[in-house]
């Protein structure tokens, strides 16, 4: 009976699956596919915010090669991946192991570690700027213990490191939750068997936990590397709209924002930078997945 009803509906409405998908497809088309195609097209034009451009071939990409700010942006985005990804693969795992056991009061710590994830990045950024200011709390403490003031917000490298610290601090809880979910699926028998064989806690972590979580670690590496390469908010808030002294802390996405927005924005050129970000991000993702596949085989 039920089967015949389904087949009748199917006959009458052959397009019904598509109807269900329409809202999602419309949103994807309007907010993702159209802007993407538009970006690709614009990358080959000299379009400005208020002036429709003309086709210029590869001129924007040739200009990129000679644009110091582009190379600075590429360097900083790459450094961000190198600095942030290892920390975000390892630290949340350790944190998840810490809060994995169901002991009284552990829910408080789990919530506490997760709090930065739900906090507004603007609020978080402002708090960190206040802490790291030349006359802020951290520098006051450093001065009290005799280290002296450190220019967290005036030195280009310290600024970048400070922004990385904020990204890691804010992301810990999010990836911790992913690890907690994965840890729940690690068979307890494996740990027990390893323990019977005389393996200590560190050995069990390396030989049981890590292999069992390998695919989760790859997922975290992939997600965090893409997010790190596209970083904007943390650097913008901590290094300021200028992207640090002389723009030395500018990341590629900041450069897209700075170049392509405003009444005189160079939309064509900014689109070309966006396209580079896209290609590098895809490459990064494929690299992580390939490394995973190689290890598996």
């Amino acid at each position, binding site marked *: 009976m039920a089967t015949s009803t389904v087949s009748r509906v199917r006959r009458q409405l052959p397009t019904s699956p598509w109807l269900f998908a329409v809202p999602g497809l419309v949103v994807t088309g309007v907010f993702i596919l159209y802007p993407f195609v538009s*970006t690709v097209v614009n990358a080959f034009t000299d379009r400005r915010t208020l002036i429709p451009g003309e086709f210029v071939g590869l001129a924007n990409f040739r200009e990129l090669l000679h644009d110091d700010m582009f190379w600075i942006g590429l360097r900083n985005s790459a450094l961000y991946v190198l600095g942030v990804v290892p920390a975000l693969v390892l630290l949340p795992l350790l944190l998840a192991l810490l809060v994995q056991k169901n002991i009284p009061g552990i829910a408080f710590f789990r919530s506490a570690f997760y709090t930065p994830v739900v906090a507004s990045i603007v609020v978080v950024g402002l708090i960190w700027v206040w802490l790291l200011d030349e006359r802020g709390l951290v520098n006051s403490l450093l001065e009290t213990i005799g280290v002296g003031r450190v220019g967290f917000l005036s030195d280009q490298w310290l600024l970048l490191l400070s922004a990385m610290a904020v990204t890691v601090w804010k992301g810990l809880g999010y990836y911790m939750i992913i690890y907690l979910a994965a840890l729940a699926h690690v068979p307890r028998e494996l740990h027990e068997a390893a323990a019977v064989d005389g393996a200590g806690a560190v050995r069990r972590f390396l030989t049981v936990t890590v292999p069992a979580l390998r695919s989760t670690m790859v997922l975290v590496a992939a997600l965090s590397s893409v997010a790190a390469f596209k970083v904007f908010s943390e650097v913008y808030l901590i290094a300021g709209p*200028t992207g640090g002294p002389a723009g030395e802390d500018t990341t590629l996405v900041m450069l897209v924002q700075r170049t392509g927005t405003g*009444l005189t924005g160079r939309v064509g050129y900014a689109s070309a930078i966006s396209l580079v970000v896209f290609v590098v991000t895809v490459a990064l993702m494929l690299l992580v997945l390939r490394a995973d596949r190689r290890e*598996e085989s």
Partner: protein
Amino acid sequence: MPTPSRRTFAVAALAALVLPLSACGSSDDGSGSTDASGKVEGDITFQTWNLRANFKPYFDGLIADFEKKYPGTHVKWIDQPAEGYADKLSADAAGGTLPDVVNVSPDLLAPLVKAGLALDLDKAAAKYRPEYLDGAWTGQQIPGVGGTYAFPWYLNTGPMFYNKGLFKKAGLDPDSPPKTYDELFTDALQMAQKSNGKVATLANVPTVEDFGRYGVELMNKQGTGFAFNDAKGVELLTKYKELYDAKALDPQALTATPESSGKMFLTEAVAMNPGSALDLENFKKQAPNLYKNIGITDQITSTGHVNMYVMGVMVNSRTKHTPAAVAFAHYVTDAQNQMSFAKQVAIFPSTAGSLDDPYFTKEDGTDETRVRIAAAKSLKNAVNYTPVLFSDQMKTALRNEVAKALQGKESPKAALDNAVKACDQLLQQQG
């Protein structure tokens, strides 16, 4: 081996993460009429720049009076926050949703004019020209393009605040603050020396307006290229480098924003900061100790002219109700309404003769009046040093090169040469 579902998941996640990188609108080519002589009627929108929070009753009254004067008109007032105003304008302009009457500064006006979005008032409203100060009217003209594209609205010239207590501690006369850049450099170095580098005099790197007030020619005579890399410009940047090295210019100046430098002044970490009369109230509430020691002086200038900020009200050339939009833009900026707006806040009318009103010339013993009279006096020979064609991208280019010079990564001469080269290139690209 990875399963297809994992691969699919990875590709989907990748697409969701990396695709939404940018979005662009398209312009609407529909054009309105330039004839403003018809009947004043219809619905129009009016956009202001961060004025609702403090002046809602004033604008509500202004709009009600206009609608009463011209039955059949309806004005919808929208206000945008200060931050990101240019982005909002560009989104509206690109999307064809620019309001009929818009509050703009000349540097925001220029790209809108070049895109053909501003109505030429020399054609549509030339009869109103004698009502305004000549300099204010010509201030709404764009080099290389004929015509005038906005009604002059309010003028402003922020005073310079200084901390008398910090001046005193550094052995400087608190009643004789620096007036010229040379005096500023001498005092600032003394301040840094006496405080062992703990108190800076300034919190901001020099901007294009500083170069102007130092007497540097900002553009060539034809207005086709920048020229602030001359000997005078190099001299100014060299002096700032000395200040930076001596910590007379705050070490965080290279990344400072107006908000962050205002905060530094509030916490008495810097001794001087530009501001407006509105700041006095802020000092009184947030830093009573500073308020007791506050000194007010003119902007630092070596040319005898302070910098003047000019606001305008433009009419969208694609408005469907040109007569109503022109009439309203004129109404907002006419002598009577500018005068009543000036009584709400420390701004100055751009209409002819308004600055001679006793309101701008007669002392009443209060700080606010002192600031107002001093500013009105300096406005009479003030200059708008911000080049109309100086875009945000050019500001960034100059700021980055100035930062390189201050850090010693480039000589002041090389830094300014690079800045001029970058700005010229951007100017050419603007067309």
